[in-house]
């Protein structure tokens, strides 16, 4: 639809538009300042620091030398860094997998109507709302070798957090436990968006429950699933508190994920420069993944 506007009127309306906009933008200033100071500035500062030689003395004096890619070369040449990176991937992969499966199971369960559904669902959400400090410590107590509830129930004396393999499983389960309700909510919303008539038609065609789930639920849930997995990946990949509170990265570094590794470099060893490299990687990996995600999403929309 084409509207022709006299040239003169267009000009005046544009100037008033501009003036109004200027005033409107002023209202954005507090928000921009806030985000700038609390998010963008520290983020940029961190990246800058990864290119500088920053130890404890430089933090105090505020003056640091640029060293180019030295810190990156240092970290990328260290087996500890790659070990920690690998541990991060195992931890994140495990958590995302368990979270997704548990979240989907819960979503399917709560998709049906039954008495007490809302109350139960709200109770489940508590796990997600609970501060990590609380949940991580509760898990630590549950899994304690001597007085932990799990051992009492199983009648065993296993030091879950004291052995490398079980410690990893423990932190994965603890993280998945708190993320699963969040995944459930997202997936439930996705499920509710699928039209019931599809299932009806499938039933008439003689499709069983499994076929309905595989041919209708899963494909139609794909966009929501991708979002869930991505969000879960991002929040798990940068998780510090659960792991630190439960194992401090131990035993013997078995659960030393990248954020814990970076924390140790910075605040136990005062190597702020190489710690900044590790935290920059924490930023880069999710960003790269998000780019792939949005690209695949756009392809799907075009298709």
């Amino acid at each position: 639809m084409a509207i022709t506007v006299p040239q003169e009127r267009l000009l005046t309306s544009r100037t008033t538009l501009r003036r109004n906009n200027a005033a409107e933008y002023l209202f954005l200033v507090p928000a921009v300042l806030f985000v700038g100071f609390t998010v963008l500035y520290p983020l940029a500062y961190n990246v800058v620091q990864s290119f500088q030689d920053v130890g404890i003395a430089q933090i105090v004096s505020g003056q640091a030398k640029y060293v180019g890619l030295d810190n990156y070369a240092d970290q990328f040449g260290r087996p500890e860094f790659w070990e920690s990176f690998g541990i991060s991937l195992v931890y994140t992969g495990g958590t995302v997998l368990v979270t997704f499966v548990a979240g989907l199971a819960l979503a399917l369960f709560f998709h049906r109507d039954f008495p007490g559904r809302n109350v139960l669902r709200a109770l489940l959400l508590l796990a997600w709302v609970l501060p990590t400090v609380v949940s991580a410590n509760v898990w630590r107590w549950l899994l304690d070798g001597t007085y932990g509830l799990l051992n009492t129930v199983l009648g065993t004396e296993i030091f879950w957090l004291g052995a490398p393999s079980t410690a990893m499983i423990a932190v994965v389960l603890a993280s998945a436990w708190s993320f699963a309700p969040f995944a459930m909510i997202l997936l439930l919303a996705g499920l509710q968006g699928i039209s019931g008539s599809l299932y009806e038609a499938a039933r008439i065609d003689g499709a069983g429950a499994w076929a309905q789930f595989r041919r209708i639920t899963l494909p139609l849930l794909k966009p929501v699933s991708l979002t869930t997995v991505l969000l879960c990946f991002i929040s798990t990949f940068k998780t510090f508190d659960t792991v630190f509170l439960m194992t401090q990265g131990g035993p013997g570094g078995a659960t030393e994920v990248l954020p814990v590794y970076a924390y140790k470099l910075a605040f136990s060893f005062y190597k702020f420069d190489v710690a900044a490299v590790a935290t920059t990687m924490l930023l880069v990996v999710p960003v790269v993944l998000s780019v792939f995600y949005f690209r695949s999403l756009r392809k799907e929309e075009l298709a």
Partner: protein
Amino acid sequence: MGVRRRLVAAIGGLGLLAGVAACGGGDEPEGASGKLTLWQYYGDPSSPTGKPLYDLVKKYDDARPDVTVDVRFIPYDDFNRTLLQSAAAKELPDVALIGAFDTATMASAGIVQDLGERVGEWGQQDKYFKTSWATTQVEGKTYGIPHVADAYAVYYNKQLLQQAGVQPPTTWAEMETAAKKLTAQGRTGLAISGIEGPEGATVPIIRMLAAGASIDKVDSAEGRAGLDQLARMIKAGSISKGALTWNEEDAKNQFANGKAAMMINSATYVNILRKENPKLQWDVALLPKDRTGQTFLSAENLAIGATSTNPDGAWDLITWLQQPAELQSYLPVRNKLAARNDVPDSSNDPVRKVFAQQLEEAWAPDEKLAPKASEVMTHLQAALQASASGSASTEDALKAAQKAIDDSLAK
């Protein structure tokens, strides 16, 4: 008109921002108001570890009517980080109660002041135990005054030892046998903290020192002998495998509820055990010996912040707090030992006497090691973890630790 009003508002806003910035700068000399700030990580006024310090500072406050001391509690885990951040913002406290082993790090970073001249005038440096005083020294300069000292010793459950017919061990060989004998259904012989990070390195360090190892050269026959025995005791169950996840508080709890017959811990828990478990019958013994019987020094130093605007006031507070007469009543309540040898212990407490005797053989990292102490200790704990869990032989664990230690010390 509209534009002008907006302009005025904008300039006003800028002015406000500038005003805030100026306030943050704090150029006003603080000495005039007689206000002092003291940062510490002992505890808040309601905690058993924090209250004695607040009480002591209040006494100082009352003795100096023109001065008020603002004591701020920052938990240990955040303490050094907060100091660093405040140093960057040039807002350090006048007095900081810092970890003895961190003193060298803080000094080399310029966070705390050189007290050399003041100490010279004061002339009391000879009153301090050598090891305690050494923690304040960096390149011949003095960066702090030892506030208190603490040592590690063996706590033992009298009842359990009697039942098993075991005497408190005096050598590490005896310790291994005793711990094995005391290990029974649901109970272990010895509780230690072996948690990831520096805290869990204390007992491995004590054990290796006993064998005669030097902490920057752990890949040695002595280092191996020390670590081998600890790993052996963990594998045998005489030390619980859970120790690898315990901090010192956890080890204390094991001992307090009778789950462990002995523990290696600092004097910090003496009053806590007495108060929380009055029925528990226990005593302390000197650390077992091998070649030596050195204890790990746990201590704090009083230092003056580099950006303090009232260093004279800060010095007055520090020296007042270190008066033998004040320490005499403060230390027993605080469960700490004197870092100086002219404080009479009138408490007549046999347990305190053992710790005081143990303190005579205290170890602290030397000047070369101190700035990297936290790093080196983390590597040592990793060696314990690796050898105890069986993921590496003691030999390989110590080789890896040595490589990491050399790497840390080279920088």
